């Protein structure tokens, strides 16, 4: 038995040299027929060596687990607000890749900063007591915002007594920040620096803010003018797949969560043109003008119910960037919406004394009504668009000193 193993090993070494592979696993990346042809082995020897290579490449007995043994830590990074956690299905699960997507200024970075603080909290307060790697690709990282959020957030989640013992500097030191101006530098860090940091075993959250920046703008501005061509998309696909493969392996091996901030793109309807964000406001006006009071008379304005608000948001002509390939790589998507408060002039409110024609032709005076307050203030929503561990849900939130807090949660799963 020992002799046959030795002879197989010797034969394997010869095969690797003939086939041109340095490691046995590389032979698994070619069809078996090609391996036989290049190695010059007969069928029987080829089968024996092929089986040996497969066992070396993937020692299945060591990798096998039954479902009950699977090392799912099932740990979660909580956002610090129970309703938001419920909306997201429990928070951000370790070992997963979560995308946070939304238009500009919807609070994506704010949410990432909040999670970066939450991840460092002890497990007794819903954290995972881990370090954070924050990769910033869109300009300077808002250090002052991070500093100002730490104490209020810790106070809100852990209580005043714990917050008094907390050191802002301690929290800041546990966040490894890297800012990359271009794609090459970022990939170099992903090849060398990030794995080295992750291998310490202390990191529980990696934030990439944003994943799309260099893959859209950096490549768009190429001097060779290849942007928009098929080779551009091919290269971008290659980068996306490479990053996705790395993130998946690291998330699983080091049991950390990856949050990738993504941008949105406009959806151009060739028949109707690009409505852009104005669609949101126009839909509000249309809903307002069609509303009626109890007597059936048109008032020109109305209280929009929650369903009406949600419907408006989903009609917005935006979609996450990077396409469906990236959508297949991530495990979950969190969408963030914002609706800025409308001005008083946006409402078709008849002035006092202005006459209005009623249905029977008689004129009447319309009374001036105050527009509802929820239309005047800026409103934000966090939505769990998809995830394997929770149904679709949306939560209205407000952004304060201590980060996001929920106002209202409603389930929109179908």
């Amino acid at each position, binding site marked *: 038995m020992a002799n046959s193993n030795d002879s197989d090993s010797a034969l394997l070494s010869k095969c690797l040299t003939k086939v041109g592979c340095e490691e046995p*696993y*590389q032979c*698994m*990346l*070619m*069809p*078996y027929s090609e391996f036989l042809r290049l190695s010059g082995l007969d069928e029987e020897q080829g089968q024996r060596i*092929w*089986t040996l*290579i*497969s*066992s070396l*490449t*993937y020692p*299945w007995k060591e*990798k*096998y*687990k*039954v*479902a*009950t043994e*699977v090392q*799912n830590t*099932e740990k979660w990074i909580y956002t610090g607000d129970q309703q938001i956690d419920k909306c997201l299905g429990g928070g951000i699960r370790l*070992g*997963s890749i979560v995308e946070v997507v939304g238009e500009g200024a919807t609070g994506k970075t704010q949410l990432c900063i909040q999670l970066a603080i939450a991840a460092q909290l002890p497990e007794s307060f819903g954290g995972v007591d881990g370090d954070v790697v924050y990769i910033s690709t869109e300009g300077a990282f808002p250090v002052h915002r991070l500093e100002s959020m730490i104490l209020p957030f810790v106070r809100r989640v852990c209580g005043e007594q714990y917050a008094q013992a907390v050191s802002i500097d301690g929290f800041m030191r546990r966040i490894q920040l890297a800012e990359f101006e271009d794609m090459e530098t970022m990939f170099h860090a992903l090849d060398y620096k990030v794995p080295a940091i992750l291998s310490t075993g202390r990191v529980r959250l990696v934030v990439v803010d944003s994943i799309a920046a260099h893959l859209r703008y950096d490549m768009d501005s190429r001097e060779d003018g290849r942007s928009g061509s098929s080779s551009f998309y*091919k290269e971008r*696909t*290659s980068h996306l*797949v*490479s990053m*996705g*493969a790395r993130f*998946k*392996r690291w*998330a*699983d091996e080091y049991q950390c969560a990856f949050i990738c901030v993504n941008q949105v793109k406009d959806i151009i309807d060739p028949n109707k043109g690009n409505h852009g964000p104005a669609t949101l406001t126009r839909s509000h006006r249309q809903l307002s003008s069609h509303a009626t009071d109890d007597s059936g008379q048109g008032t020109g304005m109305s209280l929009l119910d929650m369903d009406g608000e949600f419907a408006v948001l989903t009609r917005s002509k935006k979609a996450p960037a990077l*396409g*469906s*390939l990236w*959508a*297949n790589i*991530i*495990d979950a*998507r969190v969408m963030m919406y914002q609706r800025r408060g409308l001005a008083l002039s946006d409402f078709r409110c008849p002035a006092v004394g202005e006459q209005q024609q009623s249905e029977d032709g008689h004129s009447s005076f319309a009374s001036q009504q105050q527009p509802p307050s929820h239309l005047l203030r800026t409103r934000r929503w966090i939505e769990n*668009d*998809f995830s*394997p*561990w929770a149904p679709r849900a949306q939560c209205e939130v407000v952004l304060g000193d201590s980060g996001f807090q929920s106002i209202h949660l409603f389930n929109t799963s*179908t």
Partner: protein
Amino acid sequence: MLHFVLFLGIPVLIKERLLRNRYRTAADLESDNNGALLKFLTLPETHCIYIAVIAAATVSVVCSSAWSRLGNIAEFIGDPRSGQTQLCLRLCIAAQLPAELGGIEMRAVYVDCIGSFSSSDASRAAQSISCCCQQSSHEQLLNGVGVFRVYSAHELMALLVSFENIRSQLNNVGLLVINTISWPFLASFPDNVFRRQAMQAEAASLLTRIASKNSDNSAGTTASISLIKTRYAARALVDGRLPWTVMCGAAFLLIALHSAAKMLVPIN
């Protein structure tokens, strides 16, 4: 085509009551009148069953292939959020059920290529199915699912090459699920489409060999399932019963079932 009560999209409590009263398939429900059902169900509950049976019938109308024997390969394709992973988890659990409940009384092997396997999801699936099945507890059902995690094409290929050895040592493996088969090759060959397709064809060939080698072996047959997520397809091939029909190779037969996959997701 049979639609088992177990796989209808109705609440677990209703399923339990139906099974206790010996309603095992949709055909049993159709042959009975509402008066008999109302002895142990409320009127809204019977409406719920009616809707679920209609949904299941829609699925079978769209599925044009016959699901008949072990030793076959099937493919699920769908957009994100259409429920392929959930479906695969439930199939791994359901494979262990007795034949009268739609299973094959054999174990399942789940090859996880994307980190999709979640013990909590599997546990929920096992709990929802075990409460309708008197024979097995949910721990037993979970223990009947073996999991392999692979990160790249060479690991997946090595696993498939070793599968005969795995099957002989694990005993009574009847279902192989690969979720997803496209990702490892895409990750290993992001630039080289020709090499990727060649390796996918090699993988399909291995799967065919695994399935056909075992289809005549009554002692231990294997039904194979491969799942592929592609960005082109918004379709899924699905049935509420094991085993599935044949399709393999680089050219996959696609059947439009995107919405039907959603119908089958709320099995709880």
